[in-house]
């Protein structure tokens, strides 16, 4: 059977998510190597810049459109995606491993009764077959896996695969108006943490831990994060102390992250925390205790007092 790729493109508020560009780029690279066909699908109402996906090597996207699809609905989106996949007859389906991706991919796997590999950090070809790596135990180990079914679904961990610079190529956008939408599961309200970047999607994260001693001392962490365009994270100790919301928690019972830069401030580095952030590309540790485990995964460290170093770091970055 000839291979055909289908990439699910995720939008929120009419904007394509960065993690979907990463999936498009990875999919188009693999499709090229396999000399396979590739297409993309997006579900929603008004969506910006759909043709821009051409810049990532995919030249055809179908937009399943209806005003009722403005907000995400797992029942509506899943039903439409399953139907589209059937018509497309693609056998390799890629999605980003976001909350939405993790809703939709499993439903499709049940429908196709096929192999599903989620949260991949590596997908490559070996002997014309796809082979994936995914972390387990919050990254304390990595499994190398493959499916044994004719069709396969993969979800890609955000921030791991690089979308790179888009070319100027434009994709052909096919709009298909959808007449009936299954809203058995309906999102009635979306609250956004104002101006807040989520740690699972950020390129840079500044995290604070127990050594910051109080909730108000996260002010300097937030200031540094905003200067760097970063998200603010926290260790479990800081979350359990009630200083930060659980959505900020990085580690085994929080979020596993892989930003370009992770700055750990006054975090000693419990094994659960290290597991959740050690795949970051660069790690900076700032901690008074020079023997703290966090230094074992850090690229650069300052073994000193965060209350002295962070304000100095803020000044230094402002200067430049």
């Amino acid at each position, binding site marked *: 059977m000839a291979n055909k790729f289908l990439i699910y493109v995720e939008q929120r508020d009419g904007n394509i998510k960065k993690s979907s560009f990463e999936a498009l780029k990875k999919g188009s690279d693999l499709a090229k190597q396999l000399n396979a066909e590739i297409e993309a699908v997006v579900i929603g109402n008004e969506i910006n810049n759909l043709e821009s996906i051409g810049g990532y090597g995919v030249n055809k996207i179908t937009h399943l459109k209806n005003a009722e699809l403005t907000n995400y609905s797992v029942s509506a989106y899943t039903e439409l995606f399953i139907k589209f996949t059937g018509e497309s007859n693609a056998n390799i389906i890629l999605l980003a491993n976001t*909350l939405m991706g993790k809703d939709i991919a499993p439903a499709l796997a049940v429908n196709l009764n096929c192999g599903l590999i989620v*949260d991949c950090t590596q997908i490559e070809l070996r002997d014309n077959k796809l082979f994936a790596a995914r972390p387990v*135990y919050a990254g304390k*180990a990595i*499994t190398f896996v493959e499916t044994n079914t004719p069709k396969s679904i993969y979800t890609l961990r955000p921030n791991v695969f690089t979308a790179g610079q888009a070319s100027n190529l434009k994709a052909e956008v096919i709009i298909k108006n959808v007449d009936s939408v299954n809203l058995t599961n309906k999102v009635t309200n979306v609250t956004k943490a104002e101006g807040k*970047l989520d740690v699972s999607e950020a390129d840079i994260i500044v995290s604070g831990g127990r050594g910051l001693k109080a909730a108000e001392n996260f002010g300097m962490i937030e200031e540094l994060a905003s200067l760097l365009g970063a998200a603010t994270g926290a260790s479990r100790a800081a979350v359990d102390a009630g200083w930060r919301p*659980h959505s900020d928690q990085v580690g085994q*019972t929080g979020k596993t992250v892989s930003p370009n830069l992770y700055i750990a401030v006054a975090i000693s580095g419990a*094994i659960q925390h290290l597991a959740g952030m050690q795949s970051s590309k660069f790690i900076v540790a700032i901690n008074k205790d020079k023997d703290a485990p966090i230094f074992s995964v850090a690229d650069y460290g300052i073994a000193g007092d965060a209350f002295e170093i962070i304000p100095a770091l803020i000044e230094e970055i402002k200067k430049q």
Partner: protein
Amino acid sequence: MKIVVCVNHVPDTATRVNISSDQKTIDLERVVFVVNPYDEFAIEEALKTKEAVGGEVIAISLGKVVNKETLRKGLAMGIDEAVLLKTDEQLDTLAVAKALAEEIKSQNAELVFMGKQSVDYDNAVMGQLVAAILGYNIVANATSFNLSGNNIIAEREIEGGKETIATMLPAVITAQKGLNEPRYASLKGIMGAKKKVIEEKEVQIIDNFVNVIEMKKPPRKAPGKIVGVDASAVPELVRLLKEEAKVI
């Protein structure tokens, strides 16, 4: 109403992972097992729901005989009955979901809770798979849950915010931290749980669609640079981030 809660028996998060000689699983020697942390929220929500609307709560766990320890903890917290779906095989997520769904169906349960993720394999899709197999509604990653008649209003955490969701029974709800504060088992509960019989059923599975080729530890990082011990090291740190790492 019949409520099912699916629970998993997993290595404690403080475990240092070593790879076993088969190169496909972790070495279980000296590993301490616990109730999957997110499943504790699921158990609590199941018990709270039963207290509010009546009915019974059945816990299901799939795995080896040792999973009974986790089932017994659930019984001690107040769960009515427990079923072990026994297998020594390593199954992929879809195979596990099929076995769980079959049992849920035979129990005739219309509300199912489980943790949003099991902290061993971290797939975080089990609830979604089970819901899809059963044709139930799904709310994954729930931080609040309200049931009124057949109607469900729930909140869930998404990237950078929250969604409020309206749906209805039958449904699968996967629990995120923040959903509730799990209760402690009472002494009476613990004593009572010891006497309860945990039903065992052999899992008749079912194909694995994902093969594990090997498991490895992540590559060890080369030791980093300690740039200094006080604020005087800051300019050098910023220079390294700009010029060497090129990340700011």
